[in-house]
């Protein structure tokens, strides 16, 4: 089987698995509770509960140091079962509970059949037949429902399929074709998740671990290797990010298809800077946390709507047992998860909430709203920070990057960065300093992930000038302006140039005015609707609610524009602009969809026909597709390079498959160090080279496993640090150079890597001559070669040959 096929199967499997545990299973339990809600709302509820439940089970068990497969399964099933039993008991007499009896009846019937099968009372064929019949009965209904849904929502299904295909095309292809990690953060996250295997959560200090908990759960309970999850889970994550965006927009827009117009532009149009979406090529915590921002915002918006109805209808007797409270719970859970996963997501969620506060200001400050909101926010913060607080109380120090993040916010740390690593930066400040120096020298600091090799991207290569970023040196201009006009003009120009450089793929004339105009249009429309709220229900729409949402979106747009432009304005930067622009592009999709939605809604309202609004939004969606192809704006698949060769991952996968655990060692630079956890051992080539070149008479290098695999990049990667000879093959010249000196990963950067790989290559060639049958080529392609050494564990070879 090809690795590509394996990766596709892994991606599919992990997508299905994640969907089942975070949406499917919660749906089984809670579909009755939310049956009367909109489908998108139900989905968000299930998703919220699923993620929160798993995340916090892992947190709890890890903090008690008892997390393993059995406890994780027991806790997940046990708590759910306990909740179910309590619910049943509260309903009254157990024997009269129809639902319980039905469930028990099914379980007993299933167990009876299983017992008969195992005891041989029924034959194997009969057993299989009964099993399939049961499955058919259970799933047949579901399948029929799906078909029925597709039939009744054909246009929407087609649009969704187009969006899904677009995502597979743009992001999936890269995942399927390039197997290694795309970001230098991932080995660190891998390490932290590995440590969770030993019940050592927060291994490097207290850090938001929500994302790690989810990955760990899938790894531990389902036996999927962490490195496989980190390689391909990013696709699932990205898919869900788009789904959440789509659902959110559908939730706030009033025409049926406006959301597709925005999402298709975001997913399929080649208009944004690559860095705005490149991070979707990896399973990174920040992006994972994005999944919870929009549900939080949606639940907050819904709270204002439902609470208003409750107040109007006087449903206030049961103070907390009202629908609006459940929306606040939804908000709190999602907001807590942004804290638990990544603080940047919390910042963005906060900004979005500020937008809502402005949009719904006419209700927000009323006691009947404000009190509950304050309590909810406090609860959310406590819930989100509780695991970290417990860890701190247990004596765990804060992880370094938390301090770094705080310093960024306080303006004490560098704003320049790559999109790849905050944790790595903290781990290696020296490297960071080098990078900053380099960034300052060439003004190009945005070219980050997968390295500095992004030049290999054809799209990047075609418009190099437009892709250049100039983040660091414009902010000071405003201080030179004399009058307010000049100041505003200067600020405008800076923001405009910043957007062009950092957010857009190429210069779009009047982009900033257009964005501002859209925000203004949304705000104006919203305000008008709020003013003329007597048109309360135009064609079935709640005008006040819709108007407030429009104002909120406009406010969010402005606030996000400020956030992404703080540095351009010479103000302290709340967030690294490399990260902020990811969110900004995300938000623009919402704004764009709303702008499409407004005329559709207005025209639909004027004619009092909802189908007109839907038809117009459909036309907009189709127009987006047509225009994309017509103006050649369709995005090509990402073809970023990775921090590891495909050959290396192919070998790792085969090695894990071919050998018993803990009987082998990989000598490699450097991601395998974390990837092979639980299966084998790792040895650093720099240690190997240092020992081999030592002048000691009796120098000896032994690696005490039966099999030793040596990874040699014949064409060494730059590993984020291009140099003059980037891309050159290993050579005797490289092998003759002095051994690189440095700490940590720096010895594998740039030219150092070439020197080490050259030394390893020529050593391997020589060793193969001495041990032709013991040292063999396990795998080789144009760029990479893996040697396999088989040795006797009781009489290890001295690898320190001259």
């Amino acid at each position, binding site marked *: 089987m*090809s690795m590509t096929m394996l990766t596709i199967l892994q991606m599919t499997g992990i997508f299905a698995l994640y969907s089942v545990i975070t949406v499917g299973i919660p749906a089984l339990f809670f579909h009755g509770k939310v049956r009367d809600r909109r489908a998108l709302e139900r989905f968000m509820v299930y998703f919220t509960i699923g993620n929160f439940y798993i995340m916090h089970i892992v947190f709890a068990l890890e903090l008690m140091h008892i997390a393993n497969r059995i406890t994780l399964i027991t806790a997940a099933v046990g708590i759910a079962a306990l909740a179910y039993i309590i619910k049943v008991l509260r309903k009254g007499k157990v024997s009269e509970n129809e639902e319980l009896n039905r469930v028990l009846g099914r379980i007993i019937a299933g167990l009876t059949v299983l017992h008969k099968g195992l005891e041989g009372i029924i034959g194997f064929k009969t057993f299989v037949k009964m099993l399939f019949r049961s499955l058919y009965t259970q799933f047949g209904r579901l399948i029929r429902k799906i078909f029925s849904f597709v039939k009744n929502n054909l246009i929407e299904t087609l649009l969704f399929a187009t969006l899904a295909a677009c995502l597979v095309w743009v992001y999936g292809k890269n995942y399927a074709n390039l197997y290694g990690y795309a970001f230098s953060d991932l080995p660190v996250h891998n390490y932290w998740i590995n440590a969770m295997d030993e019940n050592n959560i927060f291994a490097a200090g207290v850090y938001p671990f929500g994302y790690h908990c989810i990955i760990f759960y899938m790894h531990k309970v389902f036996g999927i290797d962490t490195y496989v999850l980190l390689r391909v889970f990013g696709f699932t994550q990205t898919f869900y990010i788009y789904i959440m965006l789509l659902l959110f927009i559908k939730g706030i827009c009033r025409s049926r298809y406006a959301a597709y117009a925005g999402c298709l532009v975001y997913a399929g149009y080649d208009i944004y800077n690559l860095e705005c979406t490149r991070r979707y090529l990896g399973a990174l915590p920040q992006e994972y946390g994005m999944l919870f921002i929009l549900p939080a915002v949606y639940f907050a918006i819904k709270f204002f709507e439902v609470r208003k109805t409750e107040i109007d209808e006087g449903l206030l007797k049961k103070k907390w047992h009202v629908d609006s409270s459940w929306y606040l719970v939804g908000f709190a859970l999602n907001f807590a998860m942004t804290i638990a996963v990544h603080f940047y997501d919390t910042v963005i969620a906060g900004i979005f909430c500020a937008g809502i506060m402005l949009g719904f200001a006419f209700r927000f400050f009323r006691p009947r709203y404000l009190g509950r909101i304050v309590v909810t926010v406090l609860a959310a913060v406590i819930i989100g920070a509780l695991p970290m607080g417990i860890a701190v109380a247990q004596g765990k120090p804060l992880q370094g990057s938390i301090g770094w993040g705080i310093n960024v916010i306080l303006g004490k740390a560098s704003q320049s960065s790559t999109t790849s690593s905050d944790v790595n930066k903290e781990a290696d400040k020296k490297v960071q300093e080098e990078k900053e120096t380099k960034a300052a020298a060439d003004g190009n600091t945005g070219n980050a992930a997968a390295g500095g090799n992004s030049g290999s991207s054809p799209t990047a290569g075609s418009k190099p000038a437009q892709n250049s970023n100039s983040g660091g040196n414009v902010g000071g201009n405003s201080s030179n302006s004399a009058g307010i006009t000049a100041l505003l003009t200067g600020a405008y120009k800076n923001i405009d140039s910043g957007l062009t450089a950092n957010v857009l793929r190429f210069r779009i004339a009047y982009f900033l005015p257009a964005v501002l105009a859209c925000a203004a249009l949304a705000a104006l429309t919203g305000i008008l609707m709020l003013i003329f709220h007597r048109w309360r229900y135009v064609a079935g729409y709640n005008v006040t609610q819709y108007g407030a949402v429009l104002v909120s979106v406009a406010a969010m747009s402005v606030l996000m524009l400020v956030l992404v432009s703080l540095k351009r304005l010479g103000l302290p930067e709340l967030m690294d602009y490399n990260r902020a622009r990811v969110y900004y592009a995300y938000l623009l999709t919402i704004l764009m969809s709303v702008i499409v939605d407004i005329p559709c809604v207005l025209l639909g309202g004027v004619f009092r026909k909802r189908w007109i609004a839907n038809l117009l939004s459909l036309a907009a969606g189709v127009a987006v597709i047509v225009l994309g192809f017509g103006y050649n704006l369709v995005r090509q698949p990402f073809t970023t390079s990775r921090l590891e060769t495909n050959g290396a991952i192919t070998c790792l996968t*085969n090695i894990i*498959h*071919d050998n018993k655990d803990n009987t082998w060692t990989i000598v490699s630079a450097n991601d395998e160090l974390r990837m092979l956890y639980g299966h084998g051992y790792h040895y650093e080539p720099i240690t190997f080279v240092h020992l081999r070149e030592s002048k000691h008479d009796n120098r000896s290098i032994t690696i005490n496993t039966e099999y030793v695999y040596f990874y040699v990049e014949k064409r060494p990667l730059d590993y984020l640090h291009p140099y003059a000879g980037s891309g050159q093959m290993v050579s005797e010249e490289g092998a003759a150079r002095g051994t690189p000196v440095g700490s940590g990963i720096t010895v594998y950067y740039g030219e150092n890597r070439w020197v080490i790989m050259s030394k390893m290559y020529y050593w391997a060639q020589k060793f193969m001559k001495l041990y032709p*049958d013991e040292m063999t080529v396990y*795998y080789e392609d144009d760029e990479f070669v893996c040697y396999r050494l088989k040795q006797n564990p009781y*009489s290890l*070879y001295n690898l320190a040959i001259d």
Partner: protein
Amino acid sequence: MVSRRNFLAITLIMFLVLFMFQFSEFMKNFYNDYGTNPYADSDTVLTQNTAIQTNDGAQAVADGNDYAVVIGSGSASSDTGRVIKQWCSYYGKNIIYVDDPSSYSPASQHMPEVIFIDSAGINYARYTEDIERIVNTGCTVIFCSLPSADTIKANERLSSLLGIRDVVHDNAAIKGIRLFDGFLLGGEKWYIANNEKEEKYQDMQTKVAWYALKAGSKVYMAGVHDDMYGEIANEDEPCIIWRYRNDKSCIFAINADYAQSNTALGIYSAMLYEAEGSIIYPVVNSQSVIAVNYPSFADENSEQMKKRYSRTMTEAMRDIIWPNLSGLTNRLGAKVTYMVTPQYNYKDSACPDADELEYYFRLFRENGDEAGWAAYNLQDSTMRQKIVADYDTFRRNVPDYRLVSMYINASGRDKTMSLLKTSLLKDVRTVVTDYDATDRLFTYLSSNVTELRTTNDGLGYSYMNDFKNRSIETALGYSSVTLDMTDVLAPDDNSPEWSDVYESFAINLDGYLGSYGAFDKNTVSGTDTRVRRFMAVRCSSVRDGNEIRVTLTGAHDETYYVLRTHGEKIESVNGGTFKKIEDGAYLIMAQQQEFTVKLKDADALRYTN
């Protein structure tokens, strides 16, 4: 009251049951042709003496066949030299003995396949440079033994040649030896006595010169240091057998005295395999178990037997010994050759019982075993009496049974040949004799009579014997285990009882045969047939990628080969069949003069890029 109908039905069923049981027994007896020997091939079928004759001297290079060179003064007549010659003859290799290293240079147009250096016959103070020159020609070199540690310590060039970095101890005490996996067939073996009971097995050397090796060496056998030396890393243990490779040559060294006995046969084959990527060589592929002086058909030694077993001798043999022995050998799949002695004492009045003889011969036939004749160690005069008496016994009871194998211990060639002229033994074509450490394991006594040496005493297990067995199995796929029943059936006061003998034999036999399930089990006659074919065949092979083409000369029937591959797996054999012995080792049966082995693509990964 039973009705007539029911009575009839019951009667019919009883008859039916009776018939079913008795019929099978009747048929078994009816078709049991115990009076003939199924292993007695006619002389025309038998491969006559067509053993390949190997050349030496100048002819060794000229005839184009593979040849080996033995360097060392007097090596042609030394035990080491004889064993090497034996090894060469089994594989059809020529041999050259070189007394003076300075006078020898390998023929560049036809280099030797392997050069043996017998250190006992070399003055290293004088010839180190010449040895270095010979070694650097690029041949595979085997140091059959090493000079003293002092010599090595004083001779830096020699130690460098051998891959020795340092002499750690001149004569270090070791408490056991580890034989590592992948060298000899049969896998890893630790010859270390873990308790008092096992100490009786320890007969391997306990003192060795302790050398620290250079990088580039590979150890196949290492001592386990005595506790007095403190903690030592595994790879720093005293090395017994190792390989050192430099830019030019592949050098093997044996830091022990194994080269002076047949124990070296497999070591040399394994070294040749280690020097090359893959190797294919002919083997006998036969393992035999021989019960000597069992059974006997006369009731003798009654007093002792009743005292020990509460039975007469024939009763003890039938009721106690036979069930044990046949059960054990059947479980191991072994075919036993029973070297019978019709009676032990020819001076008493007890005569062989015809019923007993028939009983055992029927059992032999049922089990696929074979009967031979044992020449119990009697005086010449008694021997003549025995032959006459035994001939009479066989003639009267099984006149058509041709005795084609016999066992004689410690006899001379002439004496044996004279025995074969007697009427009793005129059909014998295989003579089994006891193991001799330096003599050939099998040879032709005459044009159609072979002599096979046993390799192991079923009751005499020791670590050295086990190692020897592994070595011979590796070289030849051959073993012959004997169980001498004399002490059991003609016991004195110090003789062990059968239960002890059986326990010991069962453990040892399992140890000897257990690791070599792939090799066939045969009676002595079956082994003889295999040996004749083995000695007649010469094979040459050429590897081209994943294909090994093997050409045979002298093969007319099925012949057997061991292919060792360093982990590569066989995909198919065109012109033969194969079965796995262990990882990287296969037994191939060739049915044609030429066959091709196709190996699986070693690079085939489960997941490809």
